[in-house]
């Protein structure tokens, strides 16, 4: 540690690792719920994901000749989030592969913390889904660990395939008594964690609110039950914990509103028209690509340019003026 040489001489107490550990704490209630519904075996998956992420981060930072920064806790967050988007019966080796993909491919290859353009956990999930479609779509029914493992369709799967299985009630979906990925089912406990993050000022309301409201609004417009659409899939997990990832979401409030709305529209389109029952993961990954573009047009206007219409920013970014000197 070094001494302070330059102003400012005082600093806010918030640090990167405090933020990361707060996110980990915010995920614990939903994890506890998941253990209750899907059995202690999910803890093994979570553990394997975390260990795989941490080891992958240490190894890749070694390989790239960087200082080891694993203590900041970001790899643990990625590991937990990855486990949250895997089915409860995922083979452990697959979870380990996912951890490696998330950290090495999606994060460290792009330059490490803060430089990745795609959400690491969701990238790993997308690759695993493409590579192992069978295992990644086998969902066990809640409490089936107490008897024999019974696989069943997720609520969105039931709708998509028009199965005549009984849909879970809204109350069951609220408390998490439905099939789905490890961390996505307990709506209430996820909201608890989300509110904690909001109160801790780690995330802002913009993305969760615009994302969830867009899905609800479009559902109401097409005569689907909005509450069912909000709680049936991974929307709450995605809106509070995935889409709000700092590195892969816009910098400003306005940008975040646009980003959330975009995620909502794509999620809804995939659910309604796509052949996948669920679209949260892909919608966030697709919107991740738009982040630099959204940022470009939503960054604040600097002080002292308070004319109602200011085109100077557009000019400053134009390819014809790469030097960008604003004259």
């Amino acid at each position, binding site marked *: *540690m*070094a*001494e*302070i*040489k*330059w*102003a*400012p*001489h*005082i*600093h*806010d107490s*918030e*640090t*990167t690792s*405090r*933020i990361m550990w707060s996110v980990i704490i915010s995920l614990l209630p939903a994890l506890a719920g998941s253990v209750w519904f899907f059995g202690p075996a999910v803890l093994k998956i979570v553990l394997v994901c975390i260990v795989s992420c941490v080891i992958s981060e240490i190894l890749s930072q070694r390989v790239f000749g960087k*200082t080891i*920064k694993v203590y*900041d806790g*970001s790899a643990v967050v990625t590991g937990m989030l990855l486990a949250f988007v895997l089915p409860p019966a995922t083979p452990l080796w697959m979870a380990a592969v996912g951890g490696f993909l998330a950290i090495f491919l999606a994060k460290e290859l792009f330059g*490490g*913390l*803060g*430089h990745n353009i795609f959400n690491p956990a969701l990238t790993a999930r997308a690759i695993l889904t493409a590579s192992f479609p069978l295992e990644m779509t086998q969902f066990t029914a809640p409490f089936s660990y107490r008897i024999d493992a019974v696989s069943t369709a997720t609520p969105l799967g039931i709708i998509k395939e028009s199965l005549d299985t009984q849909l879970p009630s809204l109350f069951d979906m609220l408390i998490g008594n439905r099939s789905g990925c490890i961390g996505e089912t307990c709506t209430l406990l996820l909201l608890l964690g989300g509110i904690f993050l909001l109160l801790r000022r780690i995330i802002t309301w913009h993305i969760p609110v615009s994302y969830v409201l867009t899905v609800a609004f479009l559902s109401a417009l097409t005569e689907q039950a909005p509450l069912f659409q909000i709680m049936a899939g991974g929307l709450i997990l995605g809106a509070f914990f995935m889409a709000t990832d*700092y*590195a892969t*979401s816009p*910098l*400003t409030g306005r940008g975040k509103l646009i980003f959330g709305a975009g995620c909502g529209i794509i999620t809804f389109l995939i659910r309604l028209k796509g052949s996948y029952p669920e679209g949260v993961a892909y919608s966030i990954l697709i919107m991740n690509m738009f982040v630099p573009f959204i940022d470009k047009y939503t*960054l*604040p*206007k*600097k*002080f*002292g*340019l*308070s004319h109602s219409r200011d085109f100077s920013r557009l000019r*400053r*970014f134009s390819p014809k003026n*790469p*030097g*960008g*000197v*604003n004259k």
Partner: protein
Amino acid sequence: MFNGGVKLVDFKELSKEKHIEDFPLPEKAAIPLSQHTGLPAKPVVKKGDAVLKGQVIGEPAGFISSFIHSSVSGTVAGIENVPLPGGKSSPAVVIQNDGQDTAVEMEKRNWLSLQPKEIVSLVREAGIVGMGGAAFPTFVKLTVPEGKKADCVILNGCECEPFLTADYRVLKEQCGGVIEGLQIICRALSIQKAYIGLENNKKDIAAMVKNAARNLHDSIKIRIKVLPERYPQGSEKHLIKSVAGKEVPSGGLPVDIGCVVFNVQTALAVRDAVCCGLPLIERVLTVTGLVPESRNLKVRIGTPISRILDYCGAEMKPGRRIVIGGPMMGVNLHSADAPVIKSTTGILILPQEEMPEEIRPCIRCGRCIEACPMRLVPAELSRRAENKDWEGCVRFDVADCIECGCCSYVCPAKRPMVELFKWAKAEMRRL
């Protein structure tokens, strides 16, 4: 009110109730010839000369420069290079104090009978510079450039930096003098309208100031504005935005929108110079932090900082550091031999905080964008500066950065934002 900024714990209660004390005269005063913005002054005395308190010892070397006066009476011991509180060094006239404190003859005047031009030249001859920290020669501000029109004077009583209470004490104890100074400034600029901006944590003196500003024997209207407590409320541009609702154009000066801003102690110095003929040879500063007792001291320019530290019983242990100025924009003191200069607002003894050795990565949390009062994008800017992409820094308006430190303060990765931006600005000047 401006966008951005940060809410800080102000620690002002440490020294807020402490009366201004006269600090004992130094045995030796080292008065730097460069303690203002602009060219260093030329010395007009030589070794062995006898000087009186208030005697001119340095003359301006150009338009933007300043007169320098002796703060004690005695003999010139030589012209030596001394370290400045900011880390640079400057030639200084070192005066051996004879302890008599004999002053040059000072002329008392009634400012009501003076013409604006006469006031401006008196201010210039008194060596008055901005005492809020920037040290820009005050007479230049009183000379409105041709083609521009000033219509509003703002007295900056915000003192938005935590810990500092010198301006607050001056306003409280010498309210009449400060208001008179403000009136003289208005007369010099031929303006009828003035504002006094106070931060909410000084609202206890708002009523008193209001009262003092009410029954003036002149047609100048002075209004008090109590502003929210939000750093950097006392930044010139942001004070104007809060008081007058206008934004100084990017790259422009306050006078472009008709505003001129002065610090509380500058106004008092103007009064002392115009009415009493007293040049700027002393100032009030706050000594606080890890000292047995925090104080507000009236100190002669040229007093070694080490003497003040001894006087206040400040123990320098490992894990402590001295900051000159406020904690947000002040500088680490490198040498306690450095003297107090016209822009020294305070001496803080702070505990050493631990900072990461290397620059940690930006996690793009966006806190700095919310905090930036200039509405810049420190996150993007700092990445470009880190990669030495100077063109990118220009594109993201590094030139508009006021180095207030809000971005560094809120950054969870503890990135040295301001340091990076200062570096980028220096590189821009070189290109």
